[in-house]
């Protein structure tokens, strides 16, 4: 979708995107010629269609191009909660955490849960790059 300032015959530029509120996004455009501003207010269907494409609107998009968020994160605690006892906490080194942070958001919760389980099974209470490489080796990846 593009917006045109009719009096100036000039394409309008995106200025800001408000966070979704009750399913509606507020996207403000302005005309670079006359400064006229207008807001596009989406309904829930329009908001959802954009989110369903796996994209974000606006300047933040470049930094967050890997997806719209984890669709499954809500399910991971439920799966973990089925365990009878609280597992020992596992610490992540900065380097390992950076590797995890670099992967797309939608697989992060499963990756974290699985790697921590792998570490615990080996008596390790810290996940470092060596553990990550061992996991890969162990599973023949």
């Amino acid at each position, binding site marked *: 979708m593009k917006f045109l300032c009719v009096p100036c015959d000039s394409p309008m530029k*995106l200025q800001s995107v408000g966070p979704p509120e009750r399913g509606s996004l507020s996207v403000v455009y302005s005309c670079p010629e006359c400064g006229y501003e207008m807001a596009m207010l989406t309904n829930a269907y329009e908001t959802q269609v954009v989110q*369903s494409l*796996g994209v*974000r609107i*606006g300047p933040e*998009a470049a930094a967050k191009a890997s997806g719209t968020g984890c*669709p499954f994160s809500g399910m991971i605690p439920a799966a973990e909660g089925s365990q009878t006892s609280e597992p020992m906490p596992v610490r992540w080194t900065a380097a390992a955490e950076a590797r995890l942070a670099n*992967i797309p958001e939608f697989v992060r919760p499963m990756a974290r849960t699985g790697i921590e389980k792998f570490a615990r099974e080996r008596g390790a209470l810290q996940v470092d790059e060596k553990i990550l490489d061992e996991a890969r080796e162990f599973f023949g990846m």
Partner: protein
Amino acid sequence: MKHYHDIVGDGGSRILEQVAEQRARITDGLAGVRHLVAVGSGKGGVGKSTLTLQLAAALRAQGLRIAILDADFNGPSQARMAGVEEGLFVPLPSPKGSAAAGSPKVALPRTKDGIGVFSMGSVIPESQALEFESAARGESQTWRATREFALLGEILGAFEWGALDLLMFDLPPGAERSVQYADFLGDRTSFLLVTIPSEVSRGVVARSIAALSKGSNRILGYVENMSGYYCRDCNAIKPLFVADGSPHLGIPCLGSVPFDPELARSCDLGVPFIGQRDTPVAHALEQIAQRLMNSLESGSEA
């Protein structure tokens, strides 16, 4: 007054740019894959997933590098059948070099035989359904298919497919779904269709062929699954369906596979079946796998 195509860019929303970036990530991620095959059928319950896994196993046994992407996100079965329900997702180091070297990837879970498998069944327990956050809750018919294809794109872009001889897509049922996957996956993807020897199934698969034939994806042929019942006591194939002769689907038949309770059991248990070489079922799977590869190789030479 200017029109849409007179204006360069989209004023800053970057939506089209991001969609193009997603496509580029997918193309880059699959650059090392020689062949892409989608296993589909208009009809559900004909054994697409079972055949996908067993053909993959037969080809893996020949030393080929194979992976499966279970694209049936709402009814994933590959995780259980391939024994990767608790598959580990390991983040890999960032690729060295420029941004063109690609984004960080996740290693693909593998079966004991070395088949790479991504299945939503490794992600979500069988007691739960796949859900997406939604601004338009209760109206999923308006957006869900789009979200699922975006997810497929994320999976294709996020995992390390590496150098493969064959990546197989296990599709959900539906003639229209096969066409949607053909559109999304592009011309590189060939299709293998699955039917059973019932007129109902053949009729639905004929519709799948008609729908796919309007596009440019290659249809390699079909497999007739559950083509009789293999009785181990008698060591004989007995009829399972009463259907007339050959189905006349107008595409090559790559072979038929009798139903074998042992194969069904191995799928339920997530253990390999193809090792049972001295059965008609294993022979049939090996032959079909070989014909599939021959067909792919002959097509790539053309």
